[in-house]
């Protein structure tokens, strides 16, 4: 009896806490349908009067489509660059006869303990000198450089677990190293690449400090930064519009999340455990 009761209490506790984690979604949706004045008297309840004009209004003052396009370019660029370069380096470290491979992996691991903010000042100056500031490449490259460490470490763990016969067979069939890598090894580690893609997508889409500090032109800002500036500039007076802006901003990640929350869970944990 006592056991049953405690199990029930734990269940209630976990469900309440679980609901608190998805509360932001309810909150944003709820705000986005409220009038300006209702937010102040009825902040967290359901709207008494539903309005749908917040969405068209926000599109007038908030450059959603520009930010969205930028976020998409940064994210895709980052994912492609990191995975291409990272998988090649991981392959070289784990499967090729390279005498410095141990040194290389320790060197790459340094990236795990250097937060981006540490080098943001010299990066800012470097990018300006290279005339890469406020270009897509100018943000994709540093973001990818910082995402590289964990990508290489995780893919290395995967490559290491594969049997050597794979390359032997490829070699006998007359593949050269490049064909072996792109035609045989990459397809074999597809699950790991999928996991990395999810992780990198989430990381790049929500990346804040680099994009906030390095990008100084409105036309090149990604969504997260655009949203932050939207708050800071308009000052928050009309929370209904803010709610709509937040929903539009979060929509892509929420959709990815709804399609594969289990995949994301697995990716997040796999990425961590393998390090």
């Amino acid at each position, binding site marked *: 009896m006592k056991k049953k009761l405690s199990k029930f209490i*734990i269940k209630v506790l976990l469900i309440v806490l679980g609901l608190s984690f998805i509360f932001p979604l309810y909150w944003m949706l709820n705000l986005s349908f409220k009038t300006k004045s209702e937010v102040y008297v009825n902040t967290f309840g359901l709207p008494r009067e539903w309005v749908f004009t917040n969405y068209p209004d926000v599109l007038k003052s908030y450059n959603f489509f520009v930010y969205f396009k930028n976020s998409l370019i940064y994210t895709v660029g980052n994912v492609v660059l990191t995975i291409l370069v990272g998988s090649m380096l991981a392959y*070289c470290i784990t499967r090729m006869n390279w005498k410095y491979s141990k040194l290389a992996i320790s060197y790459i691991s340094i990236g795990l303990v250097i937060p981006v903010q*540490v080098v943001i000042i010299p990066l800012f100056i470097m990018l300006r000198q290279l005339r890469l500031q406020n270009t897509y490449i100018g943000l994709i490259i540093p973001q990818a450089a910082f995402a590289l460490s964990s990508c290489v470490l995780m893919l290395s763990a995967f490559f290491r677990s594969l049997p050597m016969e794979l390359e032997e067979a490829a070699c006998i069939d007359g593949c050269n190293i490049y064909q*072996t890598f792109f035609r045989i090894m990459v397809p074999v580690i597809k699950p790991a690449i999928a996991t990395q893609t999810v992780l990198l997508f989430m990381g790049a889409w929500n990346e804040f400090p680099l994009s906030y500090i390095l990008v100084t032109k409105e036309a090149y800002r990604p969504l997260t930064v655009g949203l932050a500036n939207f708050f800071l500039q308009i000052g928050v007076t009309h929370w209904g519009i803010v709610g709509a802006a937040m929903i539009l901003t979060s929509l892509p990640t929420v959709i990815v999340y709804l399609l594969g929350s289990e995949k994301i869970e697995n990716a997040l944990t796999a990425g961590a455990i393998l390090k």
Partner: protein
Amino acid sequence: MNKYFSTKTSIFIFAFPGLLLFTAFVIFPLIPELIISLQNHDGFASSGYVGIKNYIDVFQSSMFWKSNRNTIIIVLMSTLITLPFSFILALLLDTQTSGVRRFFKASSVFPAVLSVTVIAQMWVAIYEPQWGLLNSVLRAVGLESWTREWLTDKNTVVFAIGTAFLWQYIGFNMLLFYTGLKSIPRTYYEAALIDGAGPVKCTIKITIPLLQDVIKYLLVISVLGSMAMFAHVEVMTLGGPGGIARTIVYQLYYTAFMTSEFGKGCAYAVIFVIECLIITLIINRFVARERIEY
């Protein structure tokens, strides 16, 4: 076979792009950083070397110590509160039916998936003094005297930001602990049960030692993550009135980009990177690292 593949050219082609990218944008900038930290630099040009004056200025400014204190508070919150709490959640989750487990696991990653801007803004609404959730609840239960302006009061602002930051990642930490728990073979617990060990003893003697790897990993990422917390401070408070909410990273950003003292900003960054390295070394030293195989 490997010899056949591993010519000098092919190793170069595979390894070079990654090493170049990493070196040029993660490691190399540390050099100009050191150099600029010894200069009087306004972001565009240097007006000469000033020796260690920037460092002396930094150590003498009260903001340096205040921002360090704020950073330490957040780091302590994340190690002493969040980690044990998320570990307990993982243990509790393990006792539940699969339906509850699935719901809780799925919802726990949601805040980590959302953009920090959204999370920070939600907490701004929770802390809002007039109609915010926190003060409304306090008023409703008759604790009127506890209500305050959470994000402008110098006694509460750091804890308020810290709570928002930690809430965002607690589910993720829980999930890692839970995955770790699941990988421990059940037979260990069965054996302990036969020997008469209770659940508490099992946790201390079996679970925690076998979760070392996970604990260490989480310790490192939570400490470094909370030391580098920036977005929450910026979006929630802009550093707070008089800079009361600034963390060391925020102070670094502020010094360089708001007051154009790039030399001093770099000095902050050099000090910060040394702090990060010391902490990582301490964790590595005190949490043993042995690969655990079952």
